[in-house]
């Protein structure tokens, strides 16, 4: 079935460094979202980006639909960016499939 692979599984950065997170998926996605899950567990939608490049604040997402991949770039990371970043795709029949996430830890 449809799979969503995220890399790296975990990432440790010094504050101020940039982060690059990857998401690859196994079949066509009609929608793709990036989420942030706080250490407490709450989920926040960051960006919806089924194709092309989108920016919001320090976040930039680039999705290349025909190559079935998306990236999330976090610039000038802050300690408050620490948490899990999830990629989720919507393929068909209203199903959303989540990746396992990238666990980001930003050190002061």
């Amino acid at each position, binding site marked *: 079935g449809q799979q969503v692979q995220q890399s790296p599984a975990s990432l440790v950065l010094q504050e101020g460094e940039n982060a690059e997170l990857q998401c690859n998926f196994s079949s066509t996605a009609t929608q793709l979202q990036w989420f942030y899950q706080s250490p407490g*567990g709450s989920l926040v939608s960051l960006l919806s980006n089924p194709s092309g490049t989108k920016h919001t604040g320090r976040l930039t997402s680039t999705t290349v639909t025909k190559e079935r991949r998306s990236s999330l770039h976090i610039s000038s990371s802050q300690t408050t960016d620490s948490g899990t970043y*999830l990629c989720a795709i919507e393929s068909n029949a209203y*199903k*959303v499939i*989540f*990746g396992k996430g990238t666990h980001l830890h930003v050190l002061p």
Partner: protein
Amino acid sequence: GALVYQYPRRTICKSGTSMRMECQAVGFQATSVAWYRQSPQKTFELIALSTVNSAIKYEQNFTQEKFPISHPNLSFSSMTVLNAYLEDRGLYLCGAWDSANSDYTFGSGTRLLVI
């Protein structure tokens, strides 16, 4: 904008008891609602997809007998975890499908602790 309120945010129940969680869609009509569970150290698994005026479709390993879902109108859905045990702990998430925008909006999740 489209919002989904999910509550409670966090709940604790005794082993063998049941707990109910709810999702409210605001600003759009939720024609379908998907319920997910994130067990410790795992990603989100789809439990079931509920579409108004259609049968609820449960994924493998999840049953109506264990996770009954109600989706009575285009703004509300609830799911109950019956006879909760340790393996049911985790974060439960609802996602509501906005047919006008062809997009899902998710709640913040309900964290279930079982003691």
